């Protein structure tokens, strides 16, 4: 509950001064608190001492590989990590996501995009804080979507969804990681146990059919987002948000 009262705190790790200025200016206008670090070791020190709510991490730092920082932080904290990268190669993003990052932004990004991603990350922190006292949740709630783990039933707006076992399994995996971008290899490994290149097409089909069943408007999905070439993400949706589009 404490999170709702205080303003969220963001640690910005970025070595380029202009981009750092841009980000903190944006954060200031939105009323976020922030601290900054210009390199990897500073970032680790700052993350450990000030315990920010979200980490905004540039992958190309002068002293340390960004992925290395993610691994180190994941050793002791589950704080959301948003990766900012100038590298347009999908491989780097996938590596960062597999190391434990929640989401990524590719430079050049727009300010709106940055804020949207931050909101999603903070929503995960809030949800987890709310749930803190009762870790063993039996029912998953996200917007109009509910999953009764014990009964093995998924509903939307109270209506039971007719999912195949595979779709249900996929939905549960996404729900357990709501707010995080899951790479397709991760999903394949979790669901099928092994990864074959040919499985990717099956995954696409399962995702498409699942989305058709749970999304109110499959052409403009709000629950499951596709990151082409990377993976998928289940997003936290506020109750009643279904009608309006998430920015």
């Amino acid at each position, binding site marked *: 509950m404490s999170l709702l009262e205080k303003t969220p705190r963001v640690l910005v790790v970025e070595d380029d001064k202009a981009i750092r200025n841009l980000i903190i200016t944006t954060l200031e206008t939105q009323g976020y608190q922030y601290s900054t670090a210009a390199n990897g070791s500073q970032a680790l020190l700052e993350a450990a001492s000030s315990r920010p709510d979200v980490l905004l991490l540039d992958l190309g730092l002068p002293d340390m590989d960004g992925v290395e920082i993610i691994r180190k932080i994941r050793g002791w904290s589950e704080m959301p990590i948003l990766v900012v990268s100038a590298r347009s190669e999908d491989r780097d993003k996938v590596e960062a996501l597999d190391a434990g990052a929640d989401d990524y932004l590719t430079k050049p990004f727009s300010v709106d995009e940055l804020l949207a991603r931050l909101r999603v990350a903070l929503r995960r922190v809030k949800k987890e804080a709310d749930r803190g006292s009762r870790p063993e949740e039996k029912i998953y709630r996200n917007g109009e979507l509910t999953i009764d783990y014990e009964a093995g039933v998924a509903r939307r707006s109270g209506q039971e969804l007719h999912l195949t076992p595979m779709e249900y399994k996929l939905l549960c995996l996404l729900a357990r990681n709501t707010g995080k971008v899951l790479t397709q290899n991760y999903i394949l490994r979790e669901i099928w146990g092994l990864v074959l290149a040919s499985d990717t097409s099956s995954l696409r089909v399962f995702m*498409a059919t699942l989305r058709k069943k749970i999304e109110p408007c499959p052409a403009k999905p709000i629950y499951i987002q596709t990151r082409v*070439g990377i993976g998928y993400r289940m997003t936290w949706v506020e109750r009643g948000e279904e009608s309006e589009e998430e920015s």
Partner: protein
Amino acid sequence: METPHVLTCLSGSPANEKVVRLAASLAQGIGAIFTALYVEPAPGGLPKGQSAEVLQNNILLAEKLGAHVATVYGGDMATQVAEYARLSGVSHIVLGRSGRLHFFRNAPQDRLARMVPEIQLCVVPYSEKEDDPLELPRVSRPHISWPDTGRCLGVVLLCTLLGGILGEMGLEMAIIGQVYILGVLAIGVVTTGWVYGLMGPLLSALAFTFLYVPPLFSFRYVAPGYPVTFLVMLVVGLITSNFTLRVRGQALTAADKAWRTEVLLRHAALLQRASSPAETLDTLCAQLEKLVAGQVRWYQPNEQGELMGPTEDKNEEESALWAWQHRSSAGATTGIRPEARRLYLPVMGQRETYAVVGLTLDKKRLPEPFVRNLLGAMVDQCGLALEKYSVEKDRDAAQHKAEQEKLRANLLRSISHDLRTPLTSICGSAGILRESGEALKEERRKELYNDIYDDALWLIDLVENLLAVTRIENGTMQLHMEPQLVEDIFAEATEHLDRHAGEHVIETRLPEDLLMAEMDSRLIVQVLVNLLNNAIKYTPPGSHILLTARSEGQWVRFAVADDGPGIPEKERGKLFEMFYTAGKRRGDSRRGMGLGLSLCRSIVRAHGGEITMEPNQPHGSIFTFTLKRKEAADLEPA
């Protein structure tokens, strides 16, 4: 001055070794090219005192001493050597000389000296016991065979019968004698070797004397001229047999030569027909297998410069490697790793060694010098053929590089030109806002902000395209192919459209569910974004843009259609060329570097598809491109 060239002759004589060694040291001493010539004798075997083993050893010795071994065929030794020496620009000839006397003809070295006076002749003397390596078989080993003996006796018998009939007819004795002379000529033709050339006249003379020269049935004679007749018969017989022997020998040599020429010509034709280095080597091996009647394998270096071939025991591989590295034969019958099962010959051009062939030899013995020579010629031909490929490859690479350079230069020129305009605008606008922002009207300020924003977005767009261009055009592009749902791709592409997209009506239509195509998603999204942005750019606000995809057999056909003014017919052909922009509005207009469509084509082609443009009805344009369709594999949990 020309490089000196030392020539020596090989023979099967033990004394030849000394000559070869001396010639080698001379060649080394004066830094000359060293050639060892083997004049193969006419059929009938090696001359007396020579053996095939010794000859083989001498050939190997010459090779080891760095000689190029050549073979010429038959005829008079001195003439052959002189001809070869003249043709290949030999400066020194090293010969052996025995103390033996030469009757009737001059010694070969003397004749040689007369034929090529411009060439230095070095004569190495050796003892009488050793045979003259230079001597051609003027008297070869006796050749006796049953068929030839039968033929010889048969002819004599026939002449006797004919003589009997003529005698009965009452003809003169001299005529019968002429019949026998005819018989002697016939024997010379139907038999081989000087033995019969001697036997024929002798038998004929004896039979004639015994049967027809009075007193009959005795070897005595009474006619005073008879010894002359006898002598004439004998001489005619000897001369005839000697002549026929030579003519036959020359005919055989000529036939061999013709066959060799034919084989080489056919070989060259086959090599020409081969379309790849591997095929060329296969052709060579097939030809060699026919020649040596044993298996032939080839080895070729791979990209990393390691020799690759059939994996066998280490010994074989190392022999092949030695042959490759040292550009010299190795393995069986050679001085290098003779314990190997095969003989390894390098296939060389002038620039490098392209491959190694391994020949399985019968009983590990070298083939006949004639075949050996042919082998060498065929391997050399193959080397030249392979060199052709290597030269072509280099030329292609150079050409490719030149094109790359040209492209890069064009790109740079175009970029630096196109970057200037938006950068000037951004820099200028930001400068005004910083210096005198307060003094400006709110409306004016907004305009400047918008300009900065627009130009920056345009730069971002340009950079994205440039990255893709360099990825594709420098040839190192590796497509990251994955099956993708077309609907996902459409969603992704429409999210990244131009800021002015809102002024147009953009519609996506997907008639099929779960349509999937194999693609590098990033690049194909880029293609769609470029096509859509183009449609937005070149059509007036309010135009309709339709994005569709449908399956077409093995393909998915994507289409971006607009109802704008369309593209004039004469400009359609150049549409996909780099740096082409519709209406040639370059210079003042910064919109469009003419990169987008060319990039789209490069990307689609790299995917194995094709991109085209056709006019829309009633007006506008439709850009379509194809990608390989992908069926979803059924997969249930393991």
